[in-house]
Protein backbone atom coordinates (compact mmCIF):
# COMPACT_ATOMS: atom_id res chain seq x y z
CA UNK A 1 0.00 0.00 0.00
CA UNK A 2 1.27 3.48 -0.92
CA UNK A 3 -0.31 6.74 0.06
CA UNK A 4 0.62 10.39 -0.30
CA UNK A 5 0.06 11.94 3.12
CA UNK A 6 1.31 15.51 2.65
CA UNK A 7 3.79 17.75 0.90
CA UNK A 8 7.30 18.06 2.26
CA UNK A 9 6.67 21.75 2.87
CA UNK A 10 3.76 20.92 5.15
CA UNK A 11 6.09 19.79 7.95
CA UNK A 12 9.01 21.99 8.94
CA UNK A 13 12.28 20.42 10.12
CA UNK A 14 12.05 19.69 13.82
CA UNK A 15 8.28 19.41 13.77
CA UNK A 16 5.70 16.66 13.47
CA UNK A 17 2.21 16.19 12.17
CA UNK A 18 -0.50 13.61 12.53
CA UNK A 19 -1.98 11.94 9.46
CA UNK A 20 -3.94 8.92 8.31
CA UNK A 21 -2.50 5.98 6.43
CA UNK A 22 -5.63 4.26 5.26
CA UNK A 23 -7.52 3.91 8.52
CA UNK A 24 -4.43 3.98 10.68
CA UNK A 25 -3.51 7.09 12.65
CA UNK A 26 0.15 7.89 12.10
CA UNK A 27 2.56 10.61 13.15
CA UNK A 28 5.05 12.08 10.70
CA UNK A 29 8.26 13.31 12.29
CA UNK A 30 10.77 15.47 10.45
CA UNK A 31 14.21 15.76 11.97
CA UNK A 32 16.21 18.98 11.89
CA UNK A 33 18.17 17.49 8.99
CA UNK A 34 14.92 17.31 7.03
CA UNK A 35 14.43 13.57 6.96
CA UNK A 36 10.93 12.14 7.43
CA UNK A 37 9.89 9.23 9.65
CA UNK A 38 6.45 7.75 10.25
CA UNK A 39 5.10 5.80 13.20
CA UNK A 40 1.82 4.69 14.63
CA UNK A 41 0.28 7.66 16.39
CA UNK A 42 -0.61 5.63 19.47
CA UNK A 43 1.71 5.31 22.42
CA UNK A 44 2.56 1.71 23.24
CA UNK A 45 1.58 2.32 26.84
CA UNK A 46 -1.97 3.65 26.97
CA UNK A 47 -2.60 4.82 23.45
CA UNK A 48 -2.11 8.58 23.74
CA UNK A 49 -1.88 10.52 20.50
CA UNK A 50 1.87 11.04 20.12
CA UNK A 51 1.35 13.96 17.77
CA UNK A 52 0.09 15.86 20.82
CA UNK A 53 3.45 15.29 22.46
CA UNK A 54 6.76 16.82 21.60
CA UNK A 55 9.54 16.25 19.08
CA UNK A 56 12.57 17.22 21.08
CA UNK A 57 15.97 16.09 22.31
CA UNK A 58 16.76 14.31 25.53
CA UNK A 59 19.40 13.98 28.19
CA UNK A 60 21.51 11.19 26.71
CA UNK A 61 22.88 8.38 28.90
CA UNK A 62 25.93 9.47 30.89
CA UNK A 63 28.37 7.59 33.09
CA UNK A 64 28.40 9.94 36.08
CA UNK A 65 25.51 10.59 38.47
CA UNK A 66 24.58 14.25 38.23
CA UNK A 67 25.91 14.69 34.69
CA UNK A 68 23.36 15.90 32.12
CA UNK A 69 23.96 16.25 28.39
CA UNK A 70 20.93 17.34 26.40
CA UNK A 71 21.44 16.19 22.83
CA UNK A 72 19.71 14.78 19.76
CA UNK A 73 17.36 17.72 19.27
CA UNK A 74 14.50 16.79 16.94
CA UNK A 75 15.10 13.04 17.17
CA UNK A 76 13.13 12.09 20.26
CA UNK A 77 9.35 11.76 20.33
CA UNK A 78 7.89 12.25 23.82
CA UNK A 79 4.41 11.08 24.74
CA UNK A 80 2.01 13.84 25.87
CA UNK A 81 0.84 11.84 28.84
CA UNK A 82 3.46 9.87 30.74
CA UNK A 83 6.46 11.23 28.88
CA UNK A 84 7.80 8.00 27.42
CA UNK A 85 10.54 8.74 24.89
CA UNK A 86 10.85 7.11 21.47
CA UNK A 87 13.92 7.27 19.26
CA UNK A 88 12.74 8.52 15.89
CA UNK A 89 15.89 7.73 13.91
CA UNK A 90 16.47 4.31 15.46
CA UNK A 91 13.31 2.45 14.65
CA UNK A 92 11.07 4.08 17.24
CA UNK A 93 12.77 2.33 20.16
CA UNK A 94 11.66 3.33 23.63
CA UNK A 95 14.73 4.93 25.20
CA UNK A 96 14.12 3.33 28.59
CA UNK A 97 13.27 -0.10 27.14
CA UNK A 98 14.76 -0.52 23.65
CA UNK A 99 13.11 -3.89 23.12
CA UNK A 100 9.84 -2.04 22.69
CA UNK A 101 9.37 -0.08 19.48
CA UNK A 102 6.62 1.95 17.92
CA UNK A 103 5.16 0.38 14.80
CA UNK A 104 6.83 2.24 11.94
CA UNK A 105 6.16 2.89 8.27
CA UNK A 106 8.46 3.39 5.30
CA UNK A 107 8.68 6.87 3.84
CA UNK A 108 9.52 7.74 0.24
CA UNK A 109 9.83 11.27 -1.04
CA UNK A 110 8.53 11.73 -4.57
CA UNK A 111 9.19 15.25 -5.84
CA UNK A 112 7.57 17.34 -3.07
CA UNK A 113 5.25 14.61 -1.86
CA UNK A 114 5.63 12.49 1.27
CA UNK A 115 4.58 8.92 0.50
CA UNK A 116 3.97 6.34 3.21
CA UNK A 117 4.57 2.74 2.17
CA UNK A 118 3.77 -0.51 3.85
Amino acid sequence: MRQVVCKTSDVNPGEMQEARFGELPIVLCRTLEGKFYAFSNRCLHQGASLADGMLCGAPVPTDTPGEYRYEREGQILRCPWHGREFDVVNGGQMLADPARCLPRFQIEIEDDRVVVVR
Partner: protein
Amino acid sequence: MSKALMLEKPKGIRLVDTDIHERVQYADLLPYLEDPWRRYILDCEWKQEKHLPYTQPAIAGLDRADARLSDGRPAGSDLDFMKQQLLDSGGHEFGILTGALDPSPSSMNGWYEMGAALASAYNDWQIEHWLERDERLYGSVHIAAKDVQTAVREIHRVGSHPKMVQVLLPLDDTLWGDPYYHPIFEAAVQHRLAVGMHHNEPPVYYGKFPRYFIEWHTMIPTAHMMQVTNLVFNGVFEKFPALKVLMIEGGFTFAPFLMRKMDEQYRHLRHEVPWIKRMPSEIIRNHIRFTTQPMDEMNRKDFMRVIEGLESEDMICFSTDYPHWDYDSPIRALPSLDFPLKEKIYSTNAKAMYEKLPGGGRQ
Protein backbone atom coordinates in the same frame (compact mmCIF):
# COMPACT_ATOMS: atom_id res chain seq x y z
CA MET B 1 -7.53 18.90 22.06
CA SER B 2 -6.22 15.73 20.59
CA LYS B 3 -6.95 15.96 16.92
CA ALA B 4 -7.69 12.25 16.89
CA LEU B 5 -10.15 12.04 19.77
CA MET B 6 -10.28 8.50 21.04
CA LEU B 7 -13.25 6.71 22.45
CA GLU B 8 -12.28 6.07 26.04
CA LYS B 9 -15.23 4.06 27.18
CA PRO B 10 -14.97 0.63 28.79
CA LYS B 11 -17.37 -1.66 27.00
CA GLY B 12 -20.71 -2.14 28.67
CA ILE B 13 -19.96 0.01 31.71
CA ARG B 14 -20.72 3.57 32.68
CA LEU B 15 -17.81 4.44 34.88
CA VAL B 16 -17.37 6.34 38.11
CA ASP B 17 -14.09 8.24 37.92
CA THR B 18 -12.89 8.86 41.45
CA ASP B 19 -10.13 11.37 40.76
CA ILE B 20 -10.67 14.32 38.44
CA HIS B 21 -8.73 17.50 39.04
CA GLU B 22 -10.57 20.66 38.23
CA ARG B 23 -8.23 23.62 38.33
CA VAL B 24 -8.87 26.85 40.10
CA GLN B 25 -6.81 29.96 39.62
CA TYR B 26 -6.42 32.53 42.34
CA ALA B 27 -8.36 35.08 40.31
CA ASP B 28 -11.32 32.68 40.22
CA LEU B 29 -11.55 32.74 43.99
CA LEU B 30 -11.49 36.50 44.43
CA PRO B 31 -15.28 36.94 44.10
CA TYR B 32 -15.74 34.41 46.88
CA LEU B 33 -13.24 35.96 49.29
CA GLU B 34 -13.79 38.81 51.67
CA ASP B 35 -11.20 41.35 52.72
CA PRO B 36 -8.58 41.09 53.99
CA TRP B 37 -8.06 37.70 52.33
CA ARG B 38 -8.88 39.02 48.89
CA ARG B 39 -6.50 41.92 49.41
CA TYR B 40 -3.60 39.67 50.39
CA ILE B 41 -3.89 38.06 46.97
CA LEU B 42 -4.55 41.28 45.06
CA ASP B 43 -2.19 43.63 46.86
CA CYS B 44 0.50 41.32 48.12
CA GLU B 45 0.43 38.70 45.34
CA TRP B 46 0.06 35.99 47.96
CA LYS B 47 0.42 32.40 46.80
CA GLN B 48 0.60 29.20 48.71
CA GLU B 49 4.10 28.04 49.52
CA LYS B 50 5.49 25.35 47.27
CA HIS B 51 6.86 22.15 48.71
CA LEU B 52 8.59 20.24 45.94
CA PRO B 53 12.13 21.30 45.05
CA TYR B 54 11.63 20.09 41.47
CA THR B 55 9.24 20.67 38.62
CA GLN B 56 7.07 17.88 37.33
CA PRO B 57 9.35 16.93 34.44
CA ALA B 58 6.70 16.15 31.84
CA ILE B 59 6.07 18.02 28.60
CA ALA B 60 3.41 20.22 30.16
CA GLY B 61 4.56 20.05 33.75
CA LEU B 62 1.84 18.66 35.94
CA ASP B 63 -0.59 18.18 33.07
CA ARG B 64 -1.24 16.03 30.04
CA ALA B 65 0.15 18.01 27.13
CA ASP B 66 -3.05 17.52 25.15
CA ALA B 67 -5.20 18.81 28.01
CA ARG B 68 -3.79 22.33 27.91
CA LEU B 69 -6.21 24.96 26.73
CA SER B 70 -5.54 26.88 23.54
CA ASP B 71 -6.01 30.23 25.29
CA GLY B 72 -3.19 29.53 27.71
CA ARG B 73 -5.25 28.60 30.75
CA PRO B 74 -4.04 25.53 32.60
CA ALA B 75 -5.50 22.09 32.03
CA GLY B 76 -8.62 21.32 34.00
CA SER B 77 -9.84 24.90 34.21
CA ASP B 78 -12.57 24.72 31.56
CA LEU B 79 -15.63 22.54 32.04
CA ASP B 80 -16.64 22.48 28.38
CA PHE B 81 -13.20 21.24 27.36
CA MET B 82 -13.25 18.67 30.13
CA LYS B 83 -16.59 17.41 28.88
CA GLN B 84 -15.25 17.09 25.38
CA GLN B 85 -11.98 15.40 26.30
CA LEU B 86 -13.03 13.30 29.27
CA LEU B 87 -16.63 13.13 30.41
CA ASP B 88 -18.29 12.61 27.05
CA SER B 89 -15.63 10.39 25.47
CA GLY B 90 -15.06 8.38 28.61
CA GLY B 91 -18.55 7.14 29.14
CA HIS B 92 -18.58 8.73 32.57
CA GLU B 93 -21.67 8.24 34.66
CA PHE B 94 -20.12 10.17 37.52
CA GLY B 95 -16.86 12.00 38.18
CA ILE B 96 -15.55 13.03 41.58
CA LEU B 97 -13.70 16.33 41.67
CA THR B 98 -10.63 16.37 43.86
CA GLY B 99 -9.26 19.85 43.29
CA ALA B 100 -5.78 20.94 42.45
CA LEU B 101 -2.54 21.10 44.35
CA ASP B 102 -2.44 24.86 44.47
CA PRO B 103 -4.16 26.18 46.41
CA SER B 104 -4.68 23.28 48.75
CA PRO B 105 -5.94 24.84 51.98
CA SER B 106 -5.43 21.68 54.02
CA SER B 107 -1.73 21.48 53.37
CA MET B 108 -0.82 25.03 54.34
CA ASN B 109 1.82 25.00 57.02
CA GLY B 110 0.51 28.02 58.85
CA TRP B 111 -1.83 31.00 58.57
CA TYR B 112 -4.84 28.71 58.95
CA GLU B 113 -7.19 31.69 58.89
CA MET B 114 -6.16 32.28 55.30
CA GLY B 115 -6.49 28.56 54.66
CA ALA B 116 -10.02 28.52 56.03
CA ALA B 117 -11.04 31.50 53.90
CA LEU B 118 -9.55 29.84 50.83
CA ALA B 119 -11.31 26.58 51.58
CA SER B 120 -14.70 28.29 51.83
CA ALA B 121 -14.08 30.24 48.64
CA TYR B 122 -12.96 27.09 46.88
CA ASN B 123 -16.04 25.17 47.93
CA ASP B 124 -18.39 27.93 46.80
CA TRP B 125 -16.57 28.27 43.48
CA GLN B 126 -16.62 24.50 42.97
CA ILE B 127 -20.35 24.28 43.63
CA GLU B 128 -21.28 27.16 41.34
CA HIS B 129 -18.95 26.49 38.43
CA TRP B 130 -18.75 22.70 38.37
CA LEU B 131 -21.21 20.79 40.50
CA GLU B 132 -24.22 22.81 39.45
CA ARG B 133 -23.19 22.89 35.79
CA ASP B 134 -22.83 19.21 35.03
CA GLU B 135 -25.03 16.55 36.56
CA ARG B 136 -22.25 13.95 36.38
CA LEU B 137 -19.84 15.86 38.60
CA TYR B 138 -19.71 15.45 42.37
CA GLY B 139 -17.44 17.30 44.72
CA SER B 140 -15.05 17.29 47.64
CA VAL B 141 -15.28 19.57 50.65
CA HIS B 142 -12.02 21.46 51.08
CA ILE B 143 -11.07 22.40 54.62
CA ALA B 144 -8.21 23.99 56.52
CA ALA B 145 -7.86 20.78 58.46
CA LYS B 146 -5.14 21.79 60.88
CA ASP B 147 -7.57 24.22 62.50
CA VAL B 148 -10.09 21.58 63.47
CA GLN B 149 -12.86 23.90 64.68
CA THR B 150 -13.01 25.92 61.47
CA ALA B 151 -12.68 22.74 59.45
CA VAL B 152 -15.68 21.21 61.16
CA ARG B 153 -17.66 24.42 60.65
CA GLU B 154 -16.90 24.29 56.93
CA ILE B 155 -18.00 20.66 56.69
CA HIS B 156 -21.27 21.61 58.36
CA ARG B 157 -21.62 24.64 56.06
CA VAL B 158 -21.32 22.84 52.72
CA GLY B 159 -21.33 19.14 53.57
CA SER B 160 -25.07 18.86 53.20
CA HIS B 161 -24.94 20.05 49.60
CA PRO B 162 -26.45 17.17 47.60
CA LYS B 163 -23.43 16.96 45.32
CA MET B 164 -20.71 16.97 47.94
CA VAL B 165 -19.67 13.37 48.54
CA GLN B 166 -16.44 13.53 50.49
CA VAL B 167 -14.13 15.60 52.67
CA LEU B 168 -10.67 15.96 51.22
CA LEU B 169 -7.54 15.59 53.34
CA PRO B 170 -4.05 15.89 51.92
CA LEU B 171 -1.29 13.37 52.42
CA ASP B 172 1.45 15.71 53.43
CA ASP B 173 3.29 15.80 56.73
CA THR B 174 0.33 15.38 59.08
CA LEU B 175 -0.94 12.04 60.32
CA TRP B 176 -4.69 12.54 60.39
CA GLY B 177 -5.55 9.60 62.64
CA ASP B 178 -4.44 11.56 65.72
CA PRO B 179 -7.42 12.03 68.06
CA TYR B 180 -7.01 15.80 67.71
CA TYR B 181 -8.43 15.48 64.17
CA HIS B 182 -11.25 13.07 64.97
CA PRO B 183 -13.94 15.81 64.91
CA ILE B 184 -13.31 16.03 61.16
CA PHE B 185 -14.21 12.37 60.69
CA GLU B 186 -17.20 12.77 62.97
CA ALA B 187 -18.52 15.67 60.90
CA ALA B 188 -17.94 13.74 57.68
CA VAL B 189 -19.99 10.82 58.94
CA GLN B 190 -22.75 13.15 60.10
CA HIS B 191 -23.13 14.39 56.53
CA ARG B 192 -22.79 10.95 54.92
CA LEU B 193 -19.49 12.00 53.39
CA ALA B 194 -16.54 9.75 52.71
CA VAL B 195 -13.05 11.05 53.43
CA GLY B 196 -10.78 11.20 50.40
CA MET B 197 -7.06 11.32 51.01
CA HIS B 198 -4.92 12.58 48.16
CA HIS B 199 -1.24 13.26 48.42
CA ASN B 200 -0.22 16.84 48.05
CA GLU B 201 3.54 17.03 48.09
CA PRO B 202 4.53 14.77 50.96
CA PRO B 203 8.14 14.67 52.06
CA VAL B 204 8.67 10.98 51.48
CA TYR B 205 12.27 10.55 52.61
CA TYR B 206 12.47 10.70 56.39
CA GLY B 207 10.48 13.92 56.41
CA LYS B 208 12.52 15.43 53.60
CA PHE B 209 12.64 15.37 49.84
CA PRO B 210 14.88 13.03 47.86
CA ARG B 211 17.25 14.45 45.31
CA TYR B 212 15.23 13.58 42.21
CA PHE B 213 11.58 13.78 41.25
CA ILE B 214 11.65 10.18 40.05
CA GLU B 215 12.54 9.08 43.59
CA TRP B 216 9.82 11.21 45.14
CA HIS B 217 7.17 10.03 42.69
CA THR B 218 8.16 6.39 43.12
CA MET B 219 7.82 6.63 46.88
CA ILE B 220 4.41 8.32 47.09
CA PRO B 221 2.73 5.02 48.06
CA THR B 222 4.80 5.07 51.25
CA ALA B 223 2.95 8.22 52.28
CA HIS B 224 -0.33 6.40 51.66
CA MET B 225 0.87 3.42 53.70
CA MET B 226 1.72 5.69 56.61
CA GLN B 227 -1.75 7.21 56.63
CA VAL B 228 -3.54 3.87 56.42
CA THR B 229 -1.46 2.49 59.26
CA ASN B 230 -2.03 5.62 61.32
CA LEU B 231 -5.80 5.71 60.79
CA VAL B 232 -6.24 2.06 61.70
CA PHE B 233 -4.07 1.93 64.82
CA ASN B 234 -5.36 5.26 66.12
CA GLY B 235 -8.79 3.69 66.22
CA VAL B 236 -10.50 5.98 63.74
CA PHE B 237 -12.67 3.23 62.32
CA GLU B 238 -13.51 1.75 65.70
CA LYS B 239 -14.72 5.18 66.76
CA PHE B 240 -16.59 5.92 63.50
CA PRO B 241 -17.89 2.61 62.21
CA ALA B 242 -19.73 4.22 59.30
CA LEU B 243 -16.62 5.97 58.00
CA LYS B 244 -15.26 5.20 54.55
CA VAL B 245 -11.85 6.44 53.37
CA LEU B 246 -10.59 6.51 49.81
CA MET B 247 -6.83 6.59 49.28
CA ILE B 248 -6.46 8.52 46.05
CA GLU B 249 -3.59 8.29 43.61
CA GLY B 250 -1.35 5.96 45.51
CA GLY B 251 -2.38 2.86 43.61
CA PHE B 252 -3.34 -0.34 45.40
CA THR B 253 -0.64 -2.93 44.84
CA PHE B 254 0.99 -2.14 48.18
CA ALA B 255 -2.18 -2.92 50.10
CA PRO B 256 -1.85 -6.74 50.34
CA PHE B 257 1.66 -6.40 51.77
CA LEU B 258 0.57 -3.73 54.25
CA MET B 259 -2.48 -5.67 55.42
CA ARG B 260 -0.42 -8.77 56.08
CA LYS B 261 2.28 -6.77 57.85
CA MET B 262 -0.25 -4.95 60.04
CA ASP B 263 -1.95 -8.21 60.97
CA GLU B 264 1.35 -9.73 62.01
CA GLN B 265 2.26 -6.68 64.09
CA TYR B 266 -1.18 -6.76 65.68
CA ARG B 267 -0.67 -10.36 66.74
CA HIS B 268 2.51 -9.30 68.54
CA LEU B 269 1.59 -5.87 69.83
CA ARG B 270 -2.18 -5.75 70.31
CA HIS B 271 -1.65 -4.81 73.94
CA GLU B 272 -0.38 -1.38 72.90
CA VAL B 273 -3.61 -0.57 71.03
CA PRO B 274 -6.30 -2.37 73.02
CA TRP B 275 -9.02 -0.27 71.40
CA ILE B 276 -8.41 -2.21 68.17
CA LYS B 277 -10.68 -5.22 68.32
CA ARG B 278 -10.43 -6.60 64.80
CA MET B 279 -7.57 -7.66 62.63
CA PRO B 280 -6.21 -4.62 60.78
CA SER B 281 -6.77 -6.30 57.44
CA GLU B 282 -10.44 -6.69 58.28
CA ILE B 283 -10.68 -3.02 59.22
CA ILE B 284 -9.02 -2.01 55.97
CA ARG B 285 -11.27 -4.31 53.97
CA ASN B 286 -14.35 -2.80 55.57
CA HIS B 287 -13.42 0.86 55.55
CA ILE B 288 -10.68 1.75 53.08
CA ARG B 289 -10.74 1.87 49.30
CA PHE B 290 -7.90 2.51 46.87
CA THR B 291 -7.90 4.14 43.45
CA THR B 292 -6.41 2.33 40.50
CA GLN B 293 -4.30 5.20 39.21
CA PRO B 294 -1.37 5.26 38.84
CA MET B 295 -1.59 1.80 37.32
CA ASP B 296 1.53 -0.24 36.93
CA GLU B 297 1.61 -2.09 33.63
CA MET B 298 0.07 -5.39 34.67
CA ASN B 299 -1.29 -8.37 32.83
CA ARG B 300 -4.44 -10.09 33.94
CA LYS B 301 -2.55 -12.72 35.93
CA ASP B 302 -0.59 -10.11 37.88
CA PHE B 303 -3.72 -8.10 38.52
CA MET B 304 -5.66 -11.08 39.80
CA ARG B 305 -2.79 -11.97 42.11
CA VAL B 306 -3.26 -8.59 43.81
CA ILE B 307 -6.99 -9.19 44.10
CA GLU B 308 -6.26 -12.53 45.75
CA GLY B 309 -3.90 -10.78 48.16
CA LEU B 310 -6.61 -8.31 49.10
CA GLU B 311 -9.07 -11.17 49.59
CA SER B 312 -11.72 -8.83 48.30
CA GLU B 313 -13.06 -7.54 45.00
CA ASP B 314 -14.61 -4.54 46.68
CA MET B 315 -11.59 -2.39 47.52
CA ILE B 316 -10.44 -0.88 44.22
CA CYS B 317 -12.06 2.08 42.47
CA PHE B 318 -11.17 3.28 39.02
CA SER B 319 -9.67 6.74 38.58
CA THR B 320 -8.12 8.66 35.70
CA ASP B 321 -6.36 11.53 37.50
CA TYR B 322 -7.39 13.70 34.56
CA PRO B 323 -5.83 16.05 33.42
CA HIS B 324 -2.50 15.24 34.98
CA TRP B 325 0.49 13.86 33.12
CA ASP B 326 0.16 10.41 34.67
CA TYR B 327 -3.49 10.11 33.64
CA ASP B 328 -4.81 6.57 33.19
CA SER B 329 -6.97 5.67 30.22
CA PRO B 330 -10.29 3.96 31.07
CA ILE B 331 -9.79 1.43 28.30
CA ARG B 332 -6.04 0.95 28.32
CA ALA B 333 -4.79 1.14 31.89
CA LEU B 334 -6.30 -2.06 33.28
CA PRO B 335 -5.95 -5.54 31.82
CA SER B 336 -9.00 -7.31 30.46
CA LEU B 337 -11.19 -8.38 33.37
CA ASP B 338 -14.36 -10.42 33.68
CA PHE B 339 -17.67 -9.26 35.01
CA PRO B 340 -18.59 -8.71 37.80
CA LEU B 341 -15.09 -7.68 38.92
CA LYS B 342 -14.79 -5.24 36.05
CA GLU B 343 -18.09 -3.60 36.92
CA LYS B 344 -17.10 -3.39 40.57
CA ILE B 345 -13.82 -1.62 39.86
CA TYR B 346 -15.19 0.76 37.27
CA SER B 347 -18.42 1.58 39.02
CA THR B 348 -20.09 -0.23 41.88
CA ASN B 349 -17.26 -0.15 44.44
CA ALA B 350 -17.26 3.65 44.26
CA LYS B 351 -21.03 3.79 44.43
CA ALA B 352 -21.02 1.62 47.54
CA MET B 353 -18.57 4.02 49.18
CA TYR B 354 -20.16 7.31 48.14
CA GLU B 355 -23.56 7.15 49.81
CA LYS B 356 -24.78 10.34 48.18
CA LEU B 357 -24.23 9.24 44.60
CA PRO B 358 -27.46 8.22 42.87
CA GLY B 359 -27.64 4.51 43.51
CA GLY B 360 -24.92 4.89 46.12
CA GLY B 361 -24.47 3.32 49.54
CA ARG B 362 -24.74 -0.27 50.57
CA GLN B 363 -27.28 -1.91 48.28
